[in-house]
Each structure stands twice: as C-alpha cells, then as structure tokens.
C-alpha cells in the first residue's frame, strides 16, 4: 500500500510554513510540515477545523504563498516560479473545493463553467473542439448532456460537485487537491462522488491530496494518512495501520471519537479535555500538551519531531503508543 518506495515523490513539502498576521499575533496555520506524495498515491490529510489542513492544501498548489520552506513538484520548487512557469504549473495541479454552492460562478452555465479552464489556458483554437472536450468531461463525471445549459442553482449538491470535479479535470492535471470534496453532501450522494473520484484516479492515474475531517471516508480513499494538529503533522502512516495501531495520543483520541453506525461495536472513548487551542502564538513544546492524556513535563519544554518509529510509520510524540485503544473498535485500558 505504501507507494513511497515504488516511485519518486510527485510533490514534496520541506519545512513548509504558512503564517498569517492577525491583530493578536502570528497565526501559525502550517508550521514546519514535511510531506512527500508519491506519484499515483492518495494521501489523506485529516484533522479538526483550524488545524491548517486546507491552508496546507492551498500552499501545495500555490494558491497561497509560503512563509518559509519549499514545495517541490516533480523536483522543481514551485515557490519561485515565474509567471509563465506558474501558468504551466496550474495545468498540472488542480483543486476541488468543499462547497460546490459558493465555488461556482452562479451566472455561468454548466458548459461555460467546465469550459472556463480550457478557455483561460487557450487549450483549443476552435470553439467546436473545445465544446467537444467539455461534453466528454461531462460524460466522464456523470453529468447528463441535457444539463449543459443549466445553471448551478438549478442543480443539487452532488451534481454541483461533479461540475467542480470536471473543472479540475479539464486541463488533465497530474495532481489534484481535494479539499473536503464530499463534506457538504448527504451520505448517498457522498458515496457516489467518492466512487467517481476513485474511478477517475484509476483511469487517469491521478495523484490526490484528500483533505477531510471524516475519518471513515479518508480510510476508504487513501493509501497513506497524515493527521494534523495545530499546524503540525503528528502522525503519518499507511491507511490501515493508522486505524489498527495509532501511536500518537491525539490520533487515538480522534479515532475513538468516531461514532460507528453499528450497535455491536461498543467502545470506550478517550475524551479530550477542552478545545483545540488557538494557533495564534502557539506555546513552546508539544502543541498537544494541554489536552494530552499521557503528557509529561518534557513535552512542555521541547517539541517532538516527526520520526519514523517503525517502517513507514511516523509519529511526533515522545511517548507514543502502545495504543490505549486498538484502532476502530478500541477499548481503553482504564
């Protein structure tokens, strides 16, 4: 499952930082993240609101400028691309946004929306060829041709998200950032879109960065999963390993918090104290210190680095597992 050894990384972030200035100080949205996404891999990025996962996704395709660090795409640093270079990069890296209601121009029809990237990048000289491509894209994402002249407000959430996917695919990219692509959808529609994304990946060999807060979705779609907490990646490993053998106390608590739609699975929750602290001027030491059930004095002074504790399993914790829960069906040791 771990594609890392099989192919060189398509995208790599090196000590990536993104800070936002606020009235109260610097907001550390992404704070020193090292990640590598192999070609053809789906890396799931999970975390709660405000952990910096969307910012990381945006910095990866340079929708936001980095504060510090590098993003390498096919070995090239995209942070200092020229205007022409950036334009070429945009064709290779695309994004699907969470909210299909607000990410589509309400005054464009479906075909105009899907044609927009093709038009902007002047892919086709002739209108007719371009529209041919648009209809092919509509077919690929499962939008009936009769909807070509409809407007977003006439369509339901699932269809709107299909438009978002078609727009991302239009330029035949290599890498797609999916930022909560199914979070705004009902479960049945969600399942349809997940299947679509999986099929597309299989046919076109895309590489995905799949950002979500839904752990059952991310387990289903990803090869590897990175867990973020307050701007840091705290654990990174194979998608099944993380559920079976979570090492970081935060991952363990997060997994134990998922409500399972079955009655035969009963488990002990690890309840975290309080809320996620503010990412503005975060304290020294481990970011999770304040809520961690296994914290010690050392954790408050020094920050644990993300280290490989077993092959392919990275954890940023001084006192990682043995897990107090055993994955999806965890039972806490009292």
């Amino acid at each position, binding site marked *: 499952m771990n594609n890392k050894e099989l192919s060189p990384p398509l995208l790599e972030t090196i000590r990536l930082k993104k800070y936002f200035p606020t009235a109260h100080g610097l907001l550390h949205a992404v704070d020193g993240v090292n990640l590598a996404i192999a070609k053809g891999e789906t890396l799931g990025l999970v975390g709660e609101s405000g952990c910096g996962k969307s910012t990381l996704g945006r910095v990866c395709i340079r929708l936001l400028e980095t504060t510090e660090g590098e993003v390498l795409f096919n070995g090239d640093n995209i942070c200092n691309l020229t205007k022409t270079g950036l334009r070429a990069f945009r064709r290779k890296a695309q994004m699907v946004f969470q909210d299909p209601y607000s990410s589509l121009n309400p005054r464009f029809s479906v075909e105009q929306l899907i044609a927009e990237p093709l038009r902007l990048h002047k892919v086709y000289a002739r209108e007719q060829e371009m529209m041919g491509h648009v209809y092919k894209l509509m077919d690929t994402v499962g939008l009936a041709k009769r909807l070509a002249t409809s407007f977003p407000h006439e369509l339901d959430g699932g269809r709107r998200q299909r438009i978002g996917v078609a727009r991302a695919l239009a330029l035949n990219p290599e890498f797609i950032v999916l930022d909560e692509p199914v979070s705004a959808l009902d479960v049945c529609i969600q399942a349809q879109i997940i299947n679509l994304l999986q099929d597309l990946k299989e046919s076109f060999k895309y590489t995905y960065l799949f950002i979500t807060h839904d752990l*059952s979705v991310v387990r289903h779609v990803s090869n590897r999963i990175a867990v973020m907490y307050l701007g840091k990646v705290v654990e990174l490993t194979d998608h099944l390993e993380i559920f079976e053998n979570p090492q970081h106390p935060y991952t363990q608590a997060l997994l134990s918090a998922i409500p399972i739609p079955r009655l035969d699975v009963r488990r002990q929750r690890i309840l975290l104290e309080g809320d996620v602290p503010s990412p503005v001027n975060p304290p020294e030491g481990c970011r999770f210190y304040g809520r961690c059930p296994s914290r010690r004095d050392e954790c408050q002074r020094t920050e644990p680095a993300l280290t490989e504790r077993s092959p392919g399993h990275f954890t940023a914790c001084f006192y990682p597992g043995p897990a107090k829960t055993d994955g999806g069906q965890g039972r806490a040791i009292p």
Partner: protein
Amino acid sequence: MPDTEFILDIRDLAVRYHTDSGVVCAVEGLNLSLKPGEFLGLVGETGAGKTTTALSVMQLIASPPGEICRGEILFDGLNLLTLSEEEKRHIRGGKIAMIFQDPMTSLNPVLSVQEQIEEMISLHSAIPREKVHEKAGEMLTLVGIQAERGSEFPYQFSGGMKQRVMIAIALACSPQLLIADEPTTALDVTIQAQVLELMQELKHHFNTATILISHDLGVVAELCDSVAIMYAGRIVEKGSAASIYNSPMHPYTQGLFNSIPDLTTIVSRLNTIPGLPPDPVNLPPGCCFAPRCHKASPMCTESSPQIKEIDSGHFVACFHPSCSKPSSHKEACHEQ
C-alpha cells in the same frame, strides 16, 4: 389505545410549503409516537422532512409559506394544532424544548449565557425569583461549564461550549419532550464526542423523551433506543434501534447503511443508491423510492405502500421488504 400511553402522538401529519416553483410536500401522512422517556432517532437526508416534522411539533412552521394541512399532533393527549397562541407559548420551551443545529446563531449575542438560561426559567417555571440565578448556575455546572463563566457572552465560548449552553437552556425547565435537531453536526469530532457523552449522561439523569434528528447513523447508534427513517416526507421504516441496525427491511434503509464507508472492512467501491432523492415539488406516483429501488415492481409505481408492522414493533412501508443484515457480507472480509 389510550392517548396517555404516549407523550407525543403524531397522526397523519401533512405539511406543505407554498413556493414560487410549486407546492412542496415536505411531510406527508406521517405517524410517529413517543413513549415517556423514549429516545428516538429520526434519520434522513437533506430535504427528507426531519426538521419540518420537528418544527411542526414546536408549532414553529412559518405560515406562509408553510401550512400544516392535515393531521393531529397530540402532546400528552392535547392536540397542539388547536391550541391558542398563548397556550402554545406556554408549552413551547417549557414542556417541549428544542436544541437547534447551529449553536452559533441560536444564542442571543448580547445577553450573557446566565441571563439566557434565567430567561427560560423565569418564563416557564414556578421557581421563585431569588432562586432563578442559583438554578441557572446549577444547569451550567450540569452541562460541564463552571458556573462562574455564566456572566460571559456567547462569543467568548467555543462551538462545543455554546452547544452545552443550548442544552442547559433546553433542559432548564425539565421539559417532557426534547427535540434535538442535529445537535452535533456543526461540531468537530472530538468535541462531538464530548457533547454525545454529555447527552448520554443527561439521558439517564433526566429521562426526558427525546427526538434526536440526525443524518449520522453513527450518532444515532450511540444514543437512541428506537429509530425512524424518513424519505421524501414519509417515514419508511421504524422500530427499535436493534431491529433497524441489525435487520433493516426497507431497501432505502439498506442503501443508506451500505453507503457509509465502514471502518472495519476493506471494499474497493462503496455501494450507492442510484439516482437522487425526488423533487419534493414533483413527487413520483406510488412509492417515492420506487424510481431508485432495485426491487421496484409495477405495483410500486401504482400505489403507495402503507406502513405495516412486519415484525413485533418493526414497521416498514414497502411492498417488498426483505431482511438483509447490512454488515453480513462485509464481515466475511473482516480485516486481519
């Protein structure tokens, strides 16, 4: 069947909204009853009519465009639909309380949380004035907020804390019926876990009859004794939590379970229900689910199936109900 057996008995309720694009049949022929102390999960997708049902019970359907065009809502034997505004106000909040989905917008931003709880108590209970402050503090402690924080304002609280305040307000007058409309949907998963834990405790503490509206079958599994599944304004299946989770009979319920990625199995594709929920302005004839149903027969498009008791306490509105354990085929490939 005497009315007093149920705290809430909804009979043949139909609610319509008159909109520019036509008449929306939000709820159609809904029957639902709740015993004292029962914790019912009302599950369905967006537009299934869950919130409309809740608002009908609260008598909060805005008219126009909404209209309750048929049915009875008996609360403790009293038909809510025939009460005067004043009588409704008396019941609403005091005897029937509601927790809304979005704690960010349902609290008053210019009143301290203490005042908001006190307001509820002084409006709806006979507690003497001087005790009101004390009682509000008790409610805060009960939902896990230090009473000293009562003087703070909603903006000073996080989402989870605000939802705790909402719960404190709702339970302040010991209502006989509580309606919680997606109480944890807006919260992060670790905060959701805290709120679910709290609701679990309060369930034992107060033993209030509760309708929990949710689209999350996981949340419902944690809290509910019985479950009703809604589709296109109708209840298609209801029964004890065990019967719904272990042997769902309606094809829609089965599809719903199969659409959720399971945490204990590995599948390459998710099972989906083909198509989309019907347009509520233009519902299909017969069974509303027939156009998406793999079992549909000509009979299904001709007449609408009535809800029938298939097994003891397990009601299904389908001509071709069948038992299929949603996880049985998956258990075969249970992970290592």
